[in-house]
């Protein structure tokens, strides 16, 4: 999480509480054990046998290691990068050594100790190197995500129609015109801000309300938004502009093309350690074939993956004549 807040992409340790990181470690270690077995055994059958034997030893150790890293993650994250790496390697190696002594007893275990320590340290260092490369590879993507957000978000249709609506207000209701221009300014400030930083849910909700206010000005009675935000955790952190594009889509595809009034639902709530946001709009068949909708969803999906890896999801579904987009992400708060 810290990684995303830094400006110049310094080296950072992987987040050991992230499912994606855990999954990668599991796969890498098991693949290596399998490769070792295939390399050492005379036949493939023997190799499988060896692998199963090795797994019986490796698997509990692996879980133990991951558990330790999970528990100690906040402390490790506070160390400088290289100190953190050393701490992780030391922790992993020490645990492996202790585990081996516990399983095999002192005389037999001690004989194998040197090998285990070397193997384990090399493996840990290798994986850390891999994660470092991974972050490096993704960093330009983060910068690009910022651009993508901009491109995907400023729908000229919305901007010019809003300006037009404000112009119409200036003579009749100057105060409301002022408010609308302020809303527009806030909206664009966010659109042009640094998309690599997490924002508080309360800020994103404020943005939703500003945006809704502007749409209401244009569409009047045709747009009805129901807000269900009582259970929304205002301190939750999320990537910026994840919800506003969804509301914009809901209005653009679900309300504007219809001559009758359209109902939009915005519900955000916390369930345990998950934050769930749902936006619903009337389903208009001809509309969903337009490319714009898919593009915005893909953009959000990508950014959620950049920020939360495998721990967030976005799904769309159809319920009768209602189109629903739901985002589920981990509940994270700013560390004091």
């Amino acid at each position, binding site marked *: 999480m810290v990684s995303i807040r830094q400006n110049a992409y310094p080296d950072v340790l992987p987040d050991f509480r992230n499912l994606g990181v855990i999954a990668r470690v599991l796969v890498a270690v098991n693949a290596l054990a399998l490769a070792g077995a295939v390399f050492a055994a005379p036949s493939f059958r023997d190799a499988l046998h060896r692998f199963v034997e090795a797994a019986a030893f490796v698997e509990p150790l692996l879980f133990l290691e991951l558990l330790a890293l999970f528990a100690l993650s906040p402390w490790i994250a506070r160390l400088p990068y290289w100190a953190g790496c050393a701490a992780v390697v030391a922790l992993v190696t020490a645990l492996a050594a202790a585990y081996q002594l516990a399983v095999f007893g002192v005389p037999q275990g001690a004989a194998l100790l040197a090998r285990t320590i070397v193997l384990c340290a090399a493996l840990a260092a290798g994986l850390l190197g891999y994660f470092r490369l991974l972050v490096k590879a993704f960093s330009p993507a983060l910068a690009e995500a910022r651009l993508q957000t901009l491109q995907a978000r400023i729908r000229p249709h919305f901007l010019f129609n809003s300006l037009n609506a404000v112009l119409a207000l200036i003579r009749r209701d100057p105060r409301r015109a002022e408010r609308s221009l302020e809303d527009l300014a806030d909206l664009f400030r966010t659109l042009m801000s640094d998309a690599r930083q997490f924002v508080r849910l309360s800020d994103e909700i404020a943005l939703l309300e500003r945006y809704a206010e502007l749409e209401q000005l244009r569409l009047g009675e045709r747009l009805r938004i129901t807000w269900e935000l009582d259970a929304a955790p205002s301190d939750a952190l999320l990537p910026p502009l994840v919800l506003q594009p969804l509301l914009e889509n809901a209005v653009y595809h679900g309300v504007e093309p219809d*001559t009758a009034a359209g109902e939009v639902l915005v519900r955000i709530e916390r369930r345990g350690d998950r934050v769930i946001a749902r936006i619903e709009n009337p389903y208009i068949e001809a509309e969903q074939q337009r490319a714009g909708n898919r593009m915005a969803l893909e953009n959000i999906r990508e950014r959620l993956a950049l920020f939360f890896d495998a721990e967030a999801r976005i799904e769309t579904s159809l319920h009768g004549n209602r189109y629903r987009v739901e985002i589920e992400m981990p509940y994270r708060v700013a560390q004091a």
Partner: protein
Amino acid sequence: MSGLRVFIADDEEPARERLKELLNDIAAELPTSIVGEARHGLETIELVPTSRAQVLLLDIQMPGMGGLEVARHLASLENAPAVVFVTAHERHAVEAFELNALDYLLKPVRSARLAAALRKAATAAAPGREQLARAASDAREYLSIAERHRIVLVPVRDIVFLMAEQKYVTLRTRERQHLIEEPLIDLEREFAAQFVRIHRNCLVARAAIRGFERASGSDEEPHWLVVLDGIDERLPVSRRQWPALRELVADKP
């Protein structure tokens, strides 16, 4: 009230208000009177024919039916108004007006541009049907029949077949039929996705084809007839079209 008779069609109330303000601002140099307003495409089609409007300020992106299609239907009116398109969507505009033959204004509209467009429109004829057809990128959702003071719209998805007869094309739905004055070849091109040619003079809705029947008549060449959904009439398939049609049916589950 005198002056140029203007009709305003826009789905956003503030946008209509803004146009009215601007018309008011330029009234000294260009007097106008507003003879009607519509909030969406279908309402425009309904209200314009009896409004006696000379110029129609027409938003391109409206619910129900977009401005371009609205203009295409209105073009067959006897006293069709000149049209000035209004759009916030420059992308749409460029695509639609590549011929640069139709006049359009970008939102937010400036009063000077509005005055110029109205002046030009006051002397211009309504845009031609062919011209509009070239400008439109999408197929229409309706076909229309212009009566004296109204336009009858028939949703394309309700049409079972279109048959050319001399100067006219007969348009057949499950309930009734109409005569329209458009060449079958143009209709075939525009609605290629929904209709298929079964004969030199006939297009049939793909969705309405239920199957084929061999003609029982023993005279001359044997041929096939199309069996249609909701209509008892069987239509002959020409020998030339048969191979393509047979594949079409084979593809159907």
